[in-house]
């Protein structure tokens, strides 16, 4: 960073910054200010609390992707996510969230249900999502003339519409399946290949009918003729229309958090950052005197800016995330310690004024940069290791590292020049 740039920039910067800080304080403590005078909604931002603090349930599902080509797995999970999302949205829960991740041969689907403390009903309803498949016959490998049904690749994923109909010659109603374009093409090929052979229609792993193909079907319509009552047929059609799973999926685990200790976490965030700031500021001022005061001002701005970022960008705060923030305050001051120690040395060497400040910063910079990068390396790896609440830790720590580059280096430098040079 050039010296001229700083000399010009710092003139107006500080005035501008004071205005900015007032705005940031207003946002950070909006709940407090709102008690005394009414704040418009865009100023009165709230913290976003993770499920571990706010309470709720998380359901984890595993989707079997072993039959899906690796390049199509992501798309399959997207489809699955959409289907489940549509289903979950029917529950009328405030801000449910569905997300997924991929592992070796399967996908994981996570359903977050804020505020739901007994998710049994949700589990049942999601479990009702049908998985429709078409099986084709395969001759047994031994000499017996029996055959097995095996999956054909045509699944409910290609289903456009299902409806109940009565056809002539049958007393029971049938469920008519209407495939989309791609599904119709696959179905046509299947009926060509297995003409005069049975094709099984399989729902949730159970064969519900296995009609013999009488003709090649080109229009993408298939009929399920079970021994349905009208009610059963209607129910099946409704379930199919609400969305069918593109792949088999089973529940793999679930988590319920009462959120009882999340009630006053907002206060704890502010309280803990205040105490951490106070103790570190006391240490810095005792040890580094005037330099300690300047660093403490920068650290205060650091804490304000972090909270500001959490609110503006809606960073989801979890318990681990708050610990990450506390830790980051202790780390943000480290850059100032490196600068102030260097400052002492350069002063001893006889430097003064702007040179002294600029050289201290430039000499300390490589250590500060390298330290921040190593912290970012471990945060990023932690973030991608897991999907649990500890992700919040990696997130707040990374945000802290980036903000400290601004406050502990850029802002402190301007402050020092302002205070010590003129």
């Amino acid at each position, binding site marked *: 960073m050039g010296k001229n740039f700083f000399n010009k920039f710092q003139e107006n910067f500080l005035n501008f910054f004071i205005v900015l800080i007032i705005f940031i304080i207003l946002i950070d403590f909006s709940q407090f200010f709102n008690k005394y005078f009414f704040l418009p909604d865009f100023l009165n931002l709230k913290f976003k609390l993770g499920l571990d603090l706010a309470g709720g349930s998380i359901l*984890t599902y*595993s989707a079997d992707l072993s039959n899906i080509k690796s390049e199509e797995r992501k798309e399959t999970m997207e489809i699955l996510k959409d289907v489940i999302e549509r289903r979950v949205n029917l529950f009328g829960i405030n801000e449910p969230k569905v997300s997924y991740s991929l*592992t*070796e041969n399967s996908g*994981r689907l996570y359903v977050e249900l804020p505020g739901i403390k*007994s*998710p*049994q009903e949700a*589990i049942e309803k999601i479990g009702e999502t049908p998985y429709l498949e078409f099986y084709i016959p395969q001759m047994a490998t031994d000499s017996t003339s029996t055959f097995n049904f095996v999956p054909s690749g045509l699944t409910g994923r290609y289903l456009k519409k299902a409806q109940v109909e009565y056809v002539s010659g049958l007393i029971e109603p049938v469920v008519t399946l209407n495939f989309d374009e791609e599904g119709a093409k696959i179905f046509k090929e299947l009926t060509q290949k297995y003409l005069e052979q049975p094709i099984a229609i399989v729902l949730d792993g159970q064969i519900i009918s296995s009609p013999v193909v009488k003709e090649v079907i080109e229009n993408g319509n298939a009929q399920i003729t079970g021994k349905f009552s009208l009610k059963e047929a209607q129910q099946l059609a409704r379930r199919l229309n609400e969305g069918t799973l593109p792949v088999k999926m089973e529940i*793999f*685990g*679930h*988590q*319920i*958090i*009462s959120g*009882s*200790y999340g009630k006053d976490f907002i206060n*704890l965030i502010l*309280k*803990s950052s205040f*105490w*951490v700031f106070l*103790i*570190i500021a006391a*240490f*810095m001022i005792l*040890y580094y005197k005037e330099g300690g005061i300047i660093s403490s001002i920068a650290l205060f701005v650091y804490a304000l800016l972090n909270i500001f970022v959490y609110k503006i960008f809606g960073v989801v705060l979890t*318990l*681990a995330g*708050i*610990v990450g923030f*506390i*830790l980051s305050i*202790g*780390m943000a*001051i*480290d850059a100032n*310690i*490196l600068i102030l*120690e260097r400052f002492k*040395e350069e002063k001893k060497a006889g430097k003064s004024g702007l040179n002294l400040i600029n050289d201290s910063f430039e*000499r300390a910079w*490589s*250590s500060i940069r*390298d*330290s921040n990068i*190593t*912290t*970012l*390396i*471990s*945060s990023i*790896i*932690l973030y991608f*290791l*897991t999907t649990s609440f*500890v992700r919040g*830790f*990696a997130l707040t720590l990374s945000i802290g590292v980036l903000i400290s580059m601004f406050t502990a280096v850029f802002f402190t430098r301007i402050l020092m020049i302002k205070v010590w040079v003129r």
Partner: protein
Amino acid sequence: MGKIIEKRIIFYTLSILLFIVSLILIFTNKFEKSVDFYGGSQVEIIIKGNVDVLGLKNDFKKFGLAEVLKTGNERYILKFNQLSEEEHQKFLEELKSKYDFEEESFTNISPIVGRELRKRTVSAILGVLVMISIYITFAFRKKVKPISSFIFGLATLIALFHDVVISLGFVSLNRFSFDINIVVALLTLAGFSVHDTIVVFDRIRENLSLSNKKILELKEIINLSIKQTLARSINTSLTTILALIVGYFIFGYYVKSLILTLIFGILIGTYSSIFIASPIIYEFYKNKIKNIKT
């Protein structure tokens, strides 16, 4: 404080001892198996009044209650083999008839998910150590003659490995449940403990570029560099530990193992960057110095 290189055998011995003790602890003490890594179900619960742990265990054996851990005042963790939500609700209903309690959380994780996370965790920890060392090798790539930047990276790797293993020993000694929080602590302390190492290495590099005789004076240069940077090594760790201590008082109830392991790891990391990482650099060049002398 000025003669660290001369006394390095003492520090090596101390570290090797700590390292071996940690390994013994890790392999004999066995970690508390957490649901995060082994699957199963777990109920975190506050039970008011006196609890007869053995009686509780017997009463609910039919639900697969395997273990009851007291984690704090009236706070318990109950571990089950595996409970579906239906069974979980039945269990709560039955518990209600006998105890006054409040359930804080329920976790049910498939052993398959646990196994996956176990695998990924091992590669994540090794990955962090290797990537940080590679980064140090890269960051110190120029102006460090006669020391190859590869040696800086290698010394970092050894020190990091030392820090992580000894911190794991600490976890085992305290019988913390080895869960995802411990992994957070290990990864973070790896990223942090290298900070002091960077500061000392940076100074060694700078002093080398100022010195004319270089290799003959390497011992003095390293000693001097450590001495010059001692205050900042200690102060940077101290402020971070102060922050964590405050965090411990406010959040320690929920994340005790995470914060304590971090504090311990930062202490070990500061120690190793001063007393282990820098002497290792010297180890690689002392023979060269002999050759020049003779």
